[in-house]
């Protein structure tokens, strides 16, 4: 008879090659997937490697594949993902595995830089602060993406990233779109050049997995569509 007090958790052990190892973990009320991983590491196998920091959905460190779907584990309740008393936890997809559940996030962050997803200043610290209306059209568009916590859930959910390792991915492109709409940014052309290259926004097939799985309910697909429009508009402008 199935023991309702225990769940069977399959956890990826190893690097790029490895296998799933099964652990029996006590079912608790109000238990998150991260709680389960922490319990295994503390009480069953101290060699298990994983990454987390804040445990409250702010830092974006603890994302993993749970039953094949990328999720922020600190805000995912076990009772939401447990199927017949079983659960599978694996490292994030589309990123190199360092060990067990910890992935190398370098390619993800390098793409933010490659997409020019950083501020290009217009002024110095000695200039007065420029007032920006929070209701202006550009600011509303920029605000739509700024709650990104860099968790890489969208990156792991994206089949275009899986098929083309050069593709910048939803998070980096969304960041580029936010910076592009920032009226204080000085080099919008550099952003459009960066996102219209080989791995740029035009690779996106609008599958929408990024938007479906974003834990903060952001819409990278809309941001990428915005970049597609602006790069096309800029292309025809230059031809004039």
């Amino acid at each position, binding site marked *: 008879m199935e023991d309702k007090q225990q769940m069977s958790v399959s956890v990826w052990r190893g690097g790029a090659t490895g296998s799933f190892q099964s652990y029996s973990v006590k079912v608790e009320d109000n238990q998150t997937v991260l709680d389960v991983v922490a319990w295994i590491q503390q009480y069953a196998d101290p060699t298990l490697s994983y990454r987390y920091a804040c445990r409250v959905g702010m830092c974006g460190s603890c994302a993993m594949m749970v039953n094949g779907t990328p999720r922020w584990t600190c805000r995912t309740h076990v009772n939401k993902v447990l199927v017949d008393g079983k659960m599978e936890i694996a490292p994030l997809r589309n990123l190199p595995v360092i060990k067990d559940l910890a992935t190398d996030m370098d390619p993800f962050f390098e793409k933010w830089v490659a997409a020019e997803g950083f501020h290009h200043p217009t002024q110095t610290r000695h200039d007065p602060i420029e007032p920006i209306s929070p209701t202006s059209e550009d600011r509303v568009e920029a605000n739509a993406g700024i709650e990104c916590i860099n968790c890489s859930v969208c990156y792991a959910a994206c089949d275009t990233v899986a098929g083309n390792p050069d593709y910048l991915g939803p998070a980096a492109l969304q960041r580029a779109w936010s910076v592009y709409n920032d009226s204080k940014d000085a080099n919008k052309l550099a952003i459009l050049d960066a996102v219209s290259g080989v791995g740029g926004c035009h690779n996106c097939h*609008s599958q929408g997995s990024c938007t*479906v799985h974003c834990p903060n309910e952001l819409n990278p697909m809309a941001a990428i569509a*915005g970049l597609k429009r602006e790069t096309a508009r800029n292309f025809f402008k230059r031809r004039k």
Partner: protein
Amino acid sequence: MIRGYRTHTLWLAFLLHRVSGVALALFLPAHFWVLSYALNKPESLDGFLNWADMGIVKLAEFGLVFLLAVHMFGGLRLMALEWLPWTSGQKTAAAGAVGLSTLLAGVFLLRAI
């Protein structure tokens, strides 16, 4: 394999768009080949048209009209997504494309039988 993270409306719309596109690409050469009979072998074309009157072929044509329509409406949705100002309700638009295509193909089938 359709994994958990893919089972949502827009990913399925993507899959349908690809499958319908490949199916139409395979169909079109055969379509033009049959049309060429009108110029070269009219008697063969008549034979083919008699064969195409069979119920099972009409049913296959229902599928063909559906694929054609869903590829067109799906393509229009994608072009609107990429060229017009962003509109929410993409899932509704994708579902609407499937609904409209089913309606069109159904009307075709009812007129054909």
